[in-house]
């Protein structure tokens, strides 16, 4: 039962901020050259087409420009980023076989415990490779495939992957998509057969341990006609004083009448550049639900995109972003209505504190084909102090008259009356403000399984208490 | 002799896949005043909205002949131009269009010919006078910032100006102050001056009925006509409520 979970009340940042000495077996040199890309490809034993794909992506990377909007990424020097770090182990399906320091990392993050209690399958990535992957027998028996992408590339789904890999997010999409195409490593492949409902969630956890490294995992999920899946993604890293880079890519294929919920609690350390690209294509009657909590990283560019490609397809995006000291988090979403009777619903909250910058950036496009479509976007921002910034930059592009598009946004601060009221009931000011901010972020926490909601509230608490007194 | 204006047979209708009307039969002759009573949720407002053609309701069976033609095949505006009127419980606010200009447009649509502004203003002033409404109402934007009572008055003003052959007044008396009730009853009186005008009053209370000359009362319970009779039914319902008509509990 959910209610039996204990709440870890006194977590501080060091909960995520521990590290083990590197004992990696192999790492490429810093920087990015065709030789390095070929070396990664060889190391990973890529099929030929993938090797060619990587080299082509590198070319695209070299000729594409840095984004001219959004937060500065000047502190990120690709010459200093190690794009591939293989931990000193091969992937295993039993925690006992995982080396002690790595296992202990995931133990401290609570992953094996969560797996035992509430997950249908777990993948754990350490730096560039998965070190653990396992799925419950009864789930596997339903025909659900949950594996690392590398072995899937050589397995029975090789052709399916080749057909879809980086088709939703082509390397030409932007500079960091191209980078991803060149050096991607790790990540998961999930296939849910038609009509299969996976009742408890699958989870992947990404841990970046090596300083100055990049993590470029690729997640490819196919939920076939009428099937259902909840996929959870978690990420964290210890803090170093050199820049780390995360340029992952998530491609979700949601079939006819299928449902995919994709939840993320992102808590990268504050030296991380998180330039992640996520995209879903939803067929007729299908639905994608994004639940997204962004707490970590130094700089984030994150706008999960939903392409509503079939009649009656739906997208929901629920997000919260908390930007504290030293953070510039540019988050939001993109929705493209490209079929009749499609609908989208976006509900986000952002919080800025102690000099943090949060930006909500979105785009809703309704094309000529999307008659009778509906879209509602609501975003709210909370300014905790005047050292911080909170910007809201939504865009709407409507190309049919048969649409209903609504948008609302609000920026404000914590109500003094609410703090006073809570304090009059004996709650300290610091606690009262933390409570109010947790309540503000409830749109996301109430969509998460309990243990993740607890983790999220702890993150808010850490951020809120860090600043007062 | 009876001259059928409205003839409903076996009318069934649903909202959001749930059937509300389970086969309603009802006939209104020209010049008659009918009352539809019933407890909350019986389907009274549904009946009015289905007759008017509210797109939120789906007709699943039956027929409605109005002035000799099938009503259910007509669009909402065609029904209005055929002589049907319904007062809304919650009339919508329309900024940028004055009450006067709106009524003039609607009247021109109904009659199919342009009216000289002077003639229109004259008859509008007369009706405002009958309803003892201030002339300034006419230049205000349609329902914008109107109180509940003012909205009801504006509905009655539209009724008089459009002069339909059948008016459905849906809970027009609910939640009104004395002044507004007086306006509504004056409006009904004026409307009924035209002998052939028919009226359906939908209500769950009997308050407004005392000043009406009621020909027929229909009791609607659980989407069906549970009883019919003359004005004496009103007193009975006042006294005993609807319990006796509720067959579900029998």
């Amino acid at each position, binding site marked *: 039962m959910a209610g039996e979970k204990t709440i870890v009340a006194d977590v501080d940042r060091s909960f995520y901020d521990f590290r083990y000495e590197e004992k990696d077996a192999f790492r490429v040199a810093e920087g990015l050259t065709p030789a390095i890309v070929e070396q990664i490809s060889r190391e990973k034993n890529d099929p030929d087409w993938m090797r060619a794909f990587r080299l082509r992506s590198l070319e695209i990377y070299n000729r594409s420009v840095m984004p001219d909007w959004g937060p500065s990424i000047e502190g990120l020097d690709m010459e200093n980023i190690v794009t591939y770090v293989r931990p000193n182990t091969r992937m295993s399906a039993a925690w006992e076989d995982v080396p002690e320091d790595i296992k202990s990392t995931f133990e401290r993050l609570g992953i094996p415990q969560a797996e035992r209690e509430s997950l249908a399958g777990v993948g754990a990535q350490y730096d560039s490779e998965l070190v653990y992957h396992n799925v419950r027998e009864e789930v596997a028996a339903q025909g659900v495939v949950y594996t690392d992408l590398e072995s899937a590339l050589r397995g029975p789904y090789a052709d399916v992957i080749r057909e879809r890999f980086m088709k939703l997010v082509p390397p030409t999409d932007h500079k960091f998509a191209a980078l991803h195409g060149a050096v991607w490593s790790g990540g998961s492949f999930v296939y849910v057969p038609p009509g299969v409902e996976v009742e408890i969630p699958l989870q992947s956890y990404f841990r970046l341990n090596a300083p100055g490294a990049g993590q470029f995992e690729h997640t490819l999920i196919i939920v076939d006609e009428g099937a259902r899946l909840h996929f959870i993604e978690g990420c964290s890293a210890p803090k170093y004083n050199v820049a780390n880079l995360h340029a992952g890519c998530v491609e979700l294929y949601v079939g006819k009448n299928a449902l995919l919920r994709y939840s993320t609690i992102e808590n990268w350390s504050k030296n991380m550049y998180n330039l992640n690209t996520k995209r879903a294509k939803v067929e007729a009657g299908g639905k994608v639900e994004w639940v997204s909590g962004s707490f970590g990283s130094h700089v984030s560019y994150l706008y999960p995109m939903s392409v509503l490609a079939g009649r009656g397809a739906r997208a929901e995006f629920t997000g919260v972003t908390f930007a504290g000291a030293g953070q510039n988090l540019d988050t939001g979403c993109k929705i493209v209505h490209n079929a009749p009777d499609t609908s989208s619903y976006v509900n986000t909250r952002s919080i800025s504190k102690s000099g943090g910058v949060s930006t909500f950036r979105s785009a809703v496009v309704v094309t000529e084909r999307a008659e009778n479509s509906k879209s509602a976007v609501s975003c709210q921002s909370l300014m905790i102090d005047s050292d*911080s910034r909170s910007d809201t930059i939504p865009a709407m*592009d409507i190309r049919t008259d048969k649409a209903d598009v609504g948008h609302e946004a609000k920026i404000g601060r914590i109500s003094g009356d609410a703090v006073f009221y809570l304090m009059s009931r004996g709650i300290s000011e610091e606690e009262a403000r933390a409570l109010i901010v947790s309540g503000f972020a409830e749109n996301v926490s109430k969509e998460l399984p309990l243990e993740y909601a607890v983790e999220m509230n702890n993150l808010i608490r850490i951020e809120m208490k860090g600043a007062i007194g | 002799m009876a001259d059928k204006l409205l003839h409903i047979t076996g009318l069934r209708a649903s909202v959001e896949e749930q059937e509300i009307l389970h086969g309603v039969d009802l006939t209104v002759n020209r010049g008659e005043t009918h009352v539809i009573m019933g407890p909350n949720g019986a389907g009274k407002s549904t009946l009015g909205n289905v007759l008017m053609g509210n797109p939120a309701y789906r007709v699943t069976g039956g027929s409605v002949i109005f002035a000799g033609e099938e009503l259910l095949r007509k669009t909402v*505006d065609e029904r209005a131009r055929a002589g049907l009127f319904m007062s809304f419980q919650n009339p919508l606010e329309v900024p940028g269009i004055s009450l006067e200009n709106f009524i003039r447009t609607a009247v021109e649509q109904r009659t199919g010919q342009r009216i000289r502004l002077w003639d229109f203003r004259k008859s509008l002033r007369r009706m405002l006078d009958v309803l003892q409404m201030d002339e300034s109402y006419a230049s205000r934007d349609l329902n914008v910032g109107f109180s509940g009572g003012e909205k009801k008055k504006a509905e009655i003003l539209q009724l008089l100006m459009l002069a339909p052959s059948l008016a459905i007044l849906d809970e027009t008396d609910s939640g009104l102050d004395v002044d507004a009730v007086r306006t509504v009853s004056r409006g009904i009186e004026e409307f009924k001056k035209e002998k052939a005008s028919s009226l359906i009053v939908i209500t769950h209370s009997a308050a407004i009925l005392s000043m009406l000359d009621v020909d027929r009362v229909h009791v609607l319970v659980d989407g069906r006509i549970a009883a019919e009779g003359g004005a004496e039914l009103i007193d009975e319902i006042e006294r005993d409520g609807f319990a006796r008509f509720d067959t579900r509990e029998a």
Partner: protein
Amino acid sequence: MITVNKPLANTFGWLHGNGTQIEAPASTEEITLTAAAGEERIVALPDSPSARITVSVAENAVLRLIQVRRGGDGGVCDIHVDCAENAHFEWYRVVLGGAASYDNCSVTLRGDGSSFLTELGFRLGGDERYDVNCEAIHLGKKTRSDIHAAGVLRDRAFKILRGTIDLRRGCAGSVGSEMEDVLLMDETVRNQSIPVILCGEEDVEGNHGATIGRLDEELVYYLASRGVSREQVYEIMAQAKLNAVISRIPDEETRLLLTENGAEGETI
């Protein structure tokens, strides 16, 4: 080529979010408007193709600027306003077509207690384009901005409105609000809306809301129940949206002119 209507913040660098590139207009009028301390002025400018207008509103002064574009080739209108303490500036802008029009209205609320109101109405059809940038930069304390826009697009008309409320650090007690309401009448129109709020101060309120698309079905039903056809309901509402803006213009002559010119339509 010059870039006009470059916004204070970009959106992804697409959807015209970075401004619009056009040829510089050949002859641009230079206009300077001032309202002296305590003065109250209404200025209705004649419809000129292109103008660069510099406005300065002194302490406790009010300046109301009225501009109507009646069609033609369009042009570029670039307005920069500076508001001193308790100064109030209003911009009434009615755009009844124009092949390609670009409006920029940038208001700096420098003085404490200064305020800015925009009433923007547009009606575009054919292949007309309207590109408008409206920004309120809140510097002073207790400043207020209200940006209201309403209009109608038909045929292949294109419109983009970037409305930016920029609440700078130090503008404590300020409020910025933006509302947009666009009625789309043909399947070939294109509407873009980018309502931006930038916020660097805690003690502020910023709001924006937008409704874009077709009419509310309940409203169509209500008006149709009085005998008005669906097409005409759209006509009426198109007119109503513009009328709502016109009726707020604080200059009777302009209002009458708009009425006589058919801006208020035939039946309504």
